[in-house]
């Protein structure tokens, strides 16, 4: 349902769009976008009428989006004059201009600072938030201290919107002047502990921005952050999950424990039914473990820290998020922090992301492949989602094919044959895209190579590939042979007959590359089974048609001849003395001849040596064949071919000393390994851009890429008691629980109790609630902030009473029709938290 997906059906036909566009353009473009003479525009801006000013501002903004800033700068000072306008609408537009132009004209921009500062104490929380945002957004370093003060005030504001603006202003202020960091960190730690979930989300984002390494600031708030996770907005969730990834790696050592292996049955049960059960009691641990090390009776099982467990559990509801990034982030947390049982929970939601729009699908596929590389089994049942469709773009089907090959070894036989049928369909049908043909042939190769594939399936893959050799599609043939070659090389003994079969296909194969490939293979296996090897025979047949071969094939025939000959020499070592004297002459002639003279005289001098032995002792056929091929190549048009012929000739000129030649010709070839294409990206963290880009972005990831921190060593981790929340009464924690309810649940509760009560709960300034019964530490903090604030803002005529009043107003505004009295509210709290508790348990 990802909204993007949804938006796609709204894509009415192109005709509708154009109709609409035409209709719209006819009247719209003229009126508002036609530029006005600058004098007139200035007059508008200077006007006393609010309507005129608005019109002028709209025009300036329009200009600023369409033209370089130099065009709108002349109006900047006129715009700034309106900053004190009482109208909120005007103010907003002025602020927009201010943000755009402040950098170009810092002096003019500074003129507005005073007014903005005044707005920070405005009654309207929206305006306060706006003012804070704009002030911190003005990129003029001089005002960093003022901004810092503004943030301080904002952090203690009673409107959560203002507090959020303060949190977001922190990184901006830091960028203005890094020296403000100590103060900023102080504000930040206040905000991290905020009760409002959308304030903390912003605070976490700010934290990641300015000081991602100061994990010590997180300890006291860890649990509250984790509990708020479900309620934050999507972007807050993303930031928090990112923070928690690093935090958990650095603060929870990976403890493992040897546990007696459970039977396979209980394994699967555990996976499906109670994956989220606590892992502390030994029973569930036994059930929980995955069958990774089958051969052992005992296996290592991760023991999760209770706090880590808390995090992983609170992520669970996020798997149903509509935001693809959140789902991936949860999957990442499970993959790198959790146990396999957790990972399998995330598989379904990951697959569900494939429903979304093409652009998101692409990125998601990379992530799925990454998970699938380490945990292929749970993906098997979703195979229908990975079938390639004809409308898939290349970057999509490439990844889908890879997924199919990854799940192939773990699939049941029926599915395996389905996948193979699928792959062969794409490989032989005169496919739309040569690259698709190529890739699917490779995929077949990978399927047959994987260690889990049974020999029969492997043979079936090979049969599929062999079928392609006769095809008219050169790409297909070349690629198939390439893959066949890899297969044979990996297990030469098993494929002796395959080589014979391949040789038979030589008649059918037309593409030179394919022929060359087959010939090479035949040559490579020429020495395997000397008694009944076909290499010599193949050579004989090939020599007949040598003239009609293309160059690549000729090269290979030449090589084959040399190999066959050397094997022959090995098998029947020549009687050393007689032979050794003769060859030096021809070899000498080989070395000096070609440069001096060309053409026919060469031939005369050259030919005798092979003939002579033939005449003398009627040489073995192989020798004759070899020399025949040599002779043929000697007069070929290709330089390359002639050169090689010369090399082989001199290498093998001495039938008795073949060491050098066998070193060159019969060197064992490294077994080719074709890993899954994404293996190269395996080291990148799930969900990162580097994973998508791969090594193209530079080895070690793109700029700003952060690798996963290693698990902290046992004993080096920070004291878990740091995470204990303020030594608070049960009341506070109950309150926390209430906070932990999702907003909708809270709504439920509110409806049960009475209308309007709930909202008050949220909007009441935090220090006031804690004054009521309880928290000890936090209230103290808050009060201190308030004191500080008062002390500092004594200049601006504000008293405690004012404050109170404002607060009242605040509440009045926010809760339209409720008058509250403290005691009732408290009793409400109790029921509140109880019901919340219930709900909470249900969640778990």
């Amino acid at each position: 349902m990802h909204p993007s997906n949804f938006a796609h059906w709204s894509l009415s036909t192109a005709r509708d769009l154009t109709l609409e566009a035409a209709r719209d353009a006819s009247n719209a473009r003229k009126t508002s976008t036609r530029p006005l003479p600058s004098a007139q525009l200035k007059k508008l801006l200077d006007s006393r009428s609010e309507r005129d000013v608005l019109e002028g501002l709209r025009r300036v903004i329009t200009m600023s989006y369409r033209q370089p800033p130099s065009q709108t700068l002349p109006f900047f000072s006129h715009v700034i004059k309106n900053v004190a306008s009482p109208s909120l609408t005007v103010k907003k537009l002025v602020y927009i201009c201010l943000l755009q132009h402040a950098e170009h004209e810092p002096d003019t921009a500074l003129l507005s600072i005073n007014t903005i500062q005044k707005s920070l104490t405005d009654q309207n929380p929206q305006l306060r938030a706006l003012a804070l945002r704009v002030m911190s957004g003005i990129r003029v370093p001089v005002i960093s201290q003022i901004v810092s003060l503004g943030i301080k005030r904002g952090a203690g504001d009673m409107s959560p919107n203002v507090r959020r603006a303060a949190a977001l202003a922190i990184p901006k202020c830091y960028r203005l002047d890094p020296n403000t960091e100590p103060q900023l960190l102080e504000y930040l730690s206040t905000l991290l502990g905020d009760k409002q979930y959308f304030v903390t989300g912003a605070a976490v984002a700010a934290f990641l921005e300015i000081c991602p390494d100061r994990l010590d600031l997180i300890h006291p708030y860890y649990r509250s952050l984790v509990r708020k996770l479900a309620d934050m907005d999507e972007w807050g969730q993303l930031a928090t999950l990112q923070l928690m990834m690093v935090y958990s790696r650095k603060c929870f050592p990976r403890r493992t424990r040897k546990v007696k292996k459970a039977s396979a049955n209980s394994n699967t049960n555990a996976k499906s039914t109670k994956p989220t059960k606590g892992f502390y009691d030994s029973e569930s641990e036994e059930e929980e473990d995955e069958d990774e090390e089958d051969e052992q009776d005992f296996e290592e099982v991760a023991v999760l820290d209770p706090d880590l467990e808390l995090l992983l559990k609170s992520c669970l509801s996020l798997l149903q998020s509509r935001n693809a990034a959140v789902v991936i982030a949860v999957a990442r947390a499970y993959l790198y922090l959790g146990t396999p049982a957790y990972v399998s929970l995330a598989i379904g939601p990951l697959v569900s992301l494939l429903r979304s729009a093409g652009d998101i699908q692409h990125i998601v596929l990379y992530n799925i492949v990454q998970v699938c590389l380490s945990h292929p089994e749970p993906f098997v049942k979703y195979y229908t989602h990975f079938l390639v469709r004809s409308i898939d773009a290349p970057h999509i089907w490439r990844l889908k094919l890879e997924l199919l090959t990854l799940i192939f070894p773990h699939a049941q036989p029926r599915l395996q044959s389905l996948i193979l049928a699928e792959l062969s369909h794409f490989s032989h049908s005169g496919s739309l895209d040569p690259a698709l043909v190529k890739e699917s042939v490779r995929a077949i190769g990978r399927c047959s190579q994987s260690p889990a594939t049974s020999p029969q399936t492997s043979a079936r893959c090979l049969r599929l590939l062999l079928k392609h050799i006769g095809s008219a599609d050169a790409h297909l043939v070349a690629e198939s042979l390439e893959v066949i070659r890899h297969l044979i090389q990996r297990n030469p003994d098993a494929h002796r007959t395959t080589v014979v079969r391949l040789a038979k296909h030589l008649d059918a194969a037309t593409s030179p590359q394919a022929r060359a490939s087959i010939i090479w293979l035949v040559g490579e296996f020429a020495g395997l089974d000397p008694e009944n090897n076909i290499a010599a025979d193949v050579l004989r047949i090939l020599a007949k048609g040598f003239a009609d071969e293309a160059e690549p094939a000729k090269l290979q025939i030449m090589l084959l001849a040399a190999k066959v000959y050397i094997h022959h020499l090995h098998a029947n070592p020549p009687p050393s003395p007689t032979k050794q004297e003769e060859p030096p002459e021809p070899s000498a002639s080989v070395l000096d001849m070609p440069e001096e003279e060309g053409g026919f005289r060469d031939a005369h001098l050259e030919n005798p040596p092979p003939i002579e032995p033939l005449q003398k002792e009627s040489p073995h056929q192989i020798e004759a064949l070899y020399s025949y091929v040599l002779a043929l190549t000697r007069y070929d048009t290709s330089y390359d071919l002639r050169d090689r012929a010369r090399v082989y000739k001199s290498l093998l000129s001495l039938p008795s000393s073949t060491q050098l030649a066998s070193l060159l010709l019969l060197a064992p070839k490294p077994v080719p390994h074709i890993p899954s294409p994404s293996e190269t990206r395996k080291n990148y963290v799930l969900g990162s851009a580097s994973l998508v880009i791969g090594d193209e972005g530079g080895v070690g990831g793109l700029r700003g890429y952060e690798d996963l921190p290693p698990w902290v060593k046992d004993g080096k981790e920070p004291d878990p008691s740091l995470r204990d929340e303020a030594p608070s009464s049960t009341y506070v924690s109950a309150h926390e629980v209430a906070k932990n309810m999702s907003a909708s649940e809270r709504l439920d509760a509110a409806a049960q109790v009475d209308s309007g009560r709930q909202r008050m709960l949220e909007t009441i300034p935090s220090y006031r609630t804690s004054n009521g019964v309880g928290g000890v530490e936090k209230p103290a903090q808050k009060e201190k902030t308030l004191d500080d604030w008062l002390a500092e803002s004594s200049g601006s005529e504000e008293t405690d009473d004012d404050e109170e009043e404002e607060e009242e107003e605040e509440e009045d505004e926010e809760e339209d029709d409720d008058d509250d009295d403290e005691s009732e509210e408290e009793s409400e709290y109790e029921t509140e938290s109880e019901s919340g508790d219930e709900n909470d348990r249900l969640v778990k």
Partner: protein
Amino acid sequence: MSTIEALFIFDEHNTPLLEHTYNGRPASGSTLLPLYLSHPTPRPSLIYLPSTNPATLLYSIVQDQLLFLAPCSSDTQPLQVLEFLHRVADVLEDYLGAPLLASKIESNYDVVAQLLNEMVDGGIISCTEPNALRDLVDAPSLMKSLLGNVGLPSTTPSSLAPSATPFSLGRGGGPSPRLGPSNAAQSTSPVPWRRANVRHTSNEMYVDIVETLSVTLSPSGRPLSAIANGTIAFTAKVSGIPDLILHLGCPGGISNAISLPVFHPCVRLNRWKERPGQLSFVPPDGRFVLAGYEVDLLGPSALDAFTTSTTKQSLPSLNIPATVSVHTSLGPSGSDFQVRLQLNPRFTGKSSAPPPSSASGRGGLGSRIAAGGGAGTSTAPAIEEMTIHIPLPSSVHNILDLRVARGMGDASYAPGSASIEWRISSREISMLMSQDRGGGVGCHATLSGTVVGAQDDDENGAGFDDTAVSLSTATYNYDDDQASSYQSAPTSTPQPSNSAQVDEKRRKANKILMPSAATVSFSVKGWLPSGIKVESLNVDQKKSKGLGGGVTPYKGVKYLCVSRRSVECRC
């Protein structure tokens, strides 16, 4: 590591429409656009541009022909940026009206500027919830009436929108009449996704369930995969804070049918887990996507049924409106192909289907058509807007003799283009359907054509190469006593078989030119492949607030099944 550094929007002609910098000094739109365009289509959504300064990760989406670009100079979570871009597009659409057009953005730069400023603060995404933004930024219509710009178009997307695009994300008929001072709404709503102080004169709720088919049929007609991706779109125009319960039902039990659901944050997950099929939620105001799900139409046992040797009789029944099959390598030289469309008789508009009389329909050509004027009942769902695409390999140069051999429609192919398009209008479909009287097997339509590839220009491609090589070696013509005996053999081998094999060769060559699949697009109103339906939609009066007692909102439900080239048949 700020996420969003800038946002660029370009219109359909790639002229810059908007350039908004949030943070840092990203490369400008004018440098990024050519680099983006230089990437071959289809362009991936994330492109790495090492040549810019700083090296840029360029994220892009295209919506309503507008191109949204967001550059990033450091590694961030790619989906975060892409989701954000989609949200921007959705929010703009919400504010400016359903098809997002360049002209609409141009005439509302002030609103757009406010929105963009609210959505991202200093590079950090802050608020993208449409309802929350409504509290902060006024809709353009209000601003306009304030300014008295009568000449400007209202942002209602005209009469087109509600009728032609009933499923647009933008609020169907433009801004609904919202009473009350939306400007003075300083109070924050207790529900983060719902505006405060919602008032409507007429309270209405609409549920639109849309299922997008995604079916792949193997050459034998066996379904390999059949998934319906469902989306529940909800339009709430209800005053106060209503608490709604939507009850979904399905013949086989909802929990069996629906898998992998995704929910809007407003849905109470616990309720769904306890009682599947019940969605309890407080809706945002306006139109939103309530949930998404998928339904596997084949069921879990599909794989067991899959064997290569089964006959057609045992095919698992798949109830979809239309399928297509492609028959290739027909004709003497194997260059003809035929595409057969079969329409499901269920969608003729008739209630009862007599038993199939003859199997002649399979052959396509021989069956006699009994013309009849039986108009179907209007309650039965009917297929609309059918298009069949037949993608062709790139080596195909032209299609000769392309015609609709049987049935109706309009087939078109431009030489060199990548696919054939065969359109059948709704009217033609109903005519086709009405011709099938008593057949019970639905009706067929056939399209045939002949492919012409590049190789037909130089008669026999592969053989020609061989002779060329042998000729060139022949010129050397050296005399070798020893080798001359072998010499005659190789030159002769290709020759004799040449004439005999030429037909076979052409067949083979033409085989490469054959289409390998065909896809069908259509839409069916009032029917869902999964059979899911809305059992009830109720306002929980006890929990709701602000909705006057006794007020029952008007409710409407709509079902739609679409296929966007996603019913695919291979061959």
